[in-house]
């Protein structure tokens, strides 16, 4: 019944479950090779960077080349701490989800550098419009961990009043925009926000994150059109973790050479970077932020990375990709790479690392205990039931008042 040959082209990944993991088709240029242009370079001049791969940490975990942001070891240690915490937190939450403590969870394992270094290279006053996989930003911006957990278990202290799925954080104080479940919608919003920053003249900028698969949405295009036309001070981060649930990146990319290269079509500065390299992410973000703040417009940054774990707790990747890919993924693990870099600098060691992991683990466990004192999804207390009628409008109209009565709350 099935044609052996499909009658039109449908791209497929190199390997599928049962096959041996293999990334040999992916070219990884050596670290340090990429040039770092001035931040006022014309967008069109960034072509090589859009097609290449900015890498700072080499295979010996040393920082090399023009893009080395030359960060103070304290900053590196801080970044390492945020990344480890992100991972520890994710792992714990997954366990808790498996125990039925929350309805859903999404990890960012393997992508911690993208969010943590991105956030650290910006100002805390810059607004971020993340997707659901940049929880690292929250750690980098110092969000209270108990608060995060209370959101995830939707208890009485959930700052979103139990209205959102877990991990769909919003935190105005930390300039962390409300995460939408609808893909790509945050992009034109980020551009509009960035334009408003210029309008206000307050020196702030905006950044947004979108997955490889989501770049196919119309809003990705609309946002880049806006960003290009109004030269908005915004950073558009494409997190190419190579998977969109079960769909490999080739379905969104088609014949496009890279996701960064899409930015070229709008004349925007476009960089493709090693997303598992803390220093590369930091340096690229710093470059783009400086460019934006100086009025030279938007930058598209493709973070080349790999979704090391399942899409979410509703997903099991063994159905669509070979096991063990992550172990041979050539760009490695972002935590391990920064750790080794710090060790190489003589600024870190295995003991301290083990202690850090232990501390953070304990802290996370203790935090969860505290979080539960504010209630659990199943046994409460939750946000009061009547709160479901609040915040639909600034003031409930007669319909909502009646409906609240009907519900008897």
């Amino acid at each position, binding site marked *: 019944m099935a044609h052996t040959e499909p009658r039109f082209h449908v791209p497929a990944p190199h390997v599928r479950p049962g096959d041996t993991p293999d990334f040999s088709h992916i070219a990884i240029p050596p670290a340090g090779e990429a040039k770092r242009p001035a931040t006022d370079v014309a967008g069109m001049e960034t072509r090589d960077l859009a097609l290449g791969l900015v890498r700072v940490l080499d295979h010996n975990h040393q920082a090399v080349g023009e893009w080395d942001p030359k960060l103070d070891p304290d900053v590196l240690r801080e970044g390492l701490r945020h990344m480890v915490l992100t991972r520890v937190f994710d792992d714990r939450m997954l366990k808790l989800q498996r125990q039925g403590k929350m309805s859903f969870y999404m990890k960012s394992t393997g992508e911690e550098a993208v969010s943590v270094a991105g956030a650290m290279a910006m100002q805390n006053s810059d*607004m971020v*419009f993340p997707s659901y996989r940049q929880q690292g930003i929250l750690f980098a911006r110092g969000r209270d961990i108990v608060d995060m957990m209370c959101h995830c278990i939707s208890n009485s202290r959930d*700052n*979103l*009043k139990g*209205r*959102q799925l877990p991990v*769909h954080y*919003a*935190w*105005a104080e930390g300039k962390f*925009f*409300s995460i*939408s*479940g*609808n893909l790509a*919608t945050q*992009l*034109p*919003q*980020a*551009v*509009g*926000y*960035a*334009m*408003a*920053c210029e*309008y*206000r003249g307050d020196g702030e900028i*905006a950044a947004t994150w979108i997955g490889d698969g989501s770049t196919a949405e*119309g*809003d990705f*295009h*609309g*946002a880049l*059109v*806006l960003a290009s*036309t109004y030269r908005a001070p915004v950073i558009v981060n494409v997190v190419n973790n190579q998977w969109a649930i079960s769909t490999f990146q080739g379905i969104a990319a088609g014949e496009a050479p890279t996701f960064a290269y899409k930015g070229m079509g709008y004349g925007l500065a476009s960089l493709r970077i090693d997303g598992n390299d803390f220093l590369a992410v930091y340096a690229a973000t710093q470059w783009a932020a400086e460019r934006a703040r100086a009025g030279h417009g938007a930058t598209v940054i493709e973070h080349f990375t790999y979704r090391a774990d399942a899409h979410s707790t509703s997903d099991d990747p063994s159905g669509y990709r070979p096991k063990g890919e992550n172990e041979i993924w050539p760009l490695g693990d972002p935590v391990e790479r920064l750790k080794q870099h710090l060790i190489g600098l003589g600024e870190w060691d295995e003991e301290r690392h083990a202690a850090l992991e232990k501390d953070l683990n304990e802290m996370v466990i203790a935090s969860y205990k505290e979080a539960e004192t504010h209630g659990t999804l199943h046994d409460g207390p939750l946000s009061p039931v009547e709160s479901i009628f*609040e*915040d*639909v*409008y*600034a003031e409930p*109209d*007669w*319909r909502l008042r009646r409906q609240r009565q009907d519900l008897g709350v």
Partner: protein
Amino acid sequence: MAKMNMIQALNSGLDNMMERDPDVISFGEDAGYFGGVFRVTANLQTKYGLDRSFDAPINEAAIMGMAIGMAAKGLKPVAEIQFADYIFPGLDQIVSEMSRLRYRSAGQFTAPVVVRSPCGGGIRGGQTHSMSPEAFFTQVPGVQVVMPSNPYDAKGLLIAAIESPDPVIFFEPKRLYNGPFEGHSGGALSSWGKHPKGEVPEDYYSLPIGKAEVVREGSAITIVTYGTLVLVAQAAAEKAGIDAEVIDLKTLVPYDLETIARSVNKTGRCIVAQEAPRTSGFAAELAAQVQEECFYALEAPIQRVTGWDTPYPHAHEWAYFPGPDRFINAMNAVLEA
């Protein structure tokens, strides 16, 4: 007081608000330099600058998204969708984002955008320049929906919309832009200058969102409608000499149930009317709620006067348009029932 048509009244409302509040900005396709294909935003760019009245790319989703982002930063964006028929590419940003931002963030972020868009037929616009898509929005928790029927209300409500802390979808019945309309395809266009609601203060004023108006008092039957059909219903009652009470809803969400119920409890008979196709239009909501609210007062079934369940035809638009004769037939049917 000045005589204004609806375009001038809307323009005046925008002008007042841009003058009063530097956070108010206006944009849309052709809405900047040229001032909009219907000229509602005329002269605003000259007066307020390129950044407060500007042309947008042809991407309604991007326009909505940009407006949301700006509003989240505290600006008051008034975004024009050139024709209501073209709002659909931007619908996701309205339904999934603008309407829910306050809710999903528990009040931390809000998007009090005003979306202005000309709607309705009767201008030989064919199926893509004639839609009345209000029922796509009346079902969306978190947005208010407004549709004025005359210059005075248009300005007062637009100002209220800009001042609303909630997103407002503001439909402008384009058949009424240049003059009142009584539903006779052939009839000469009369002018707003001769209509009392064509008298419009040049200065700031606002009208409350959520308040309907009894624009014709009567005791035999209640007609509840909005936009162009308000004038058509009045003309039909006049023509047929029926003592109909006509309610101009003005705000669809939240609609003024009190005013409607008071009237229906008095008349015992009710027609609800919309220009959009019949099935699942906003008139269905009105009928459903009125029969629940006023069941024991009702002496006859509530009739719906609506467009047909077809796209808006071009050549035969007057066969589609719910004109005075359809109102008269419905009134007779309800009165005889």
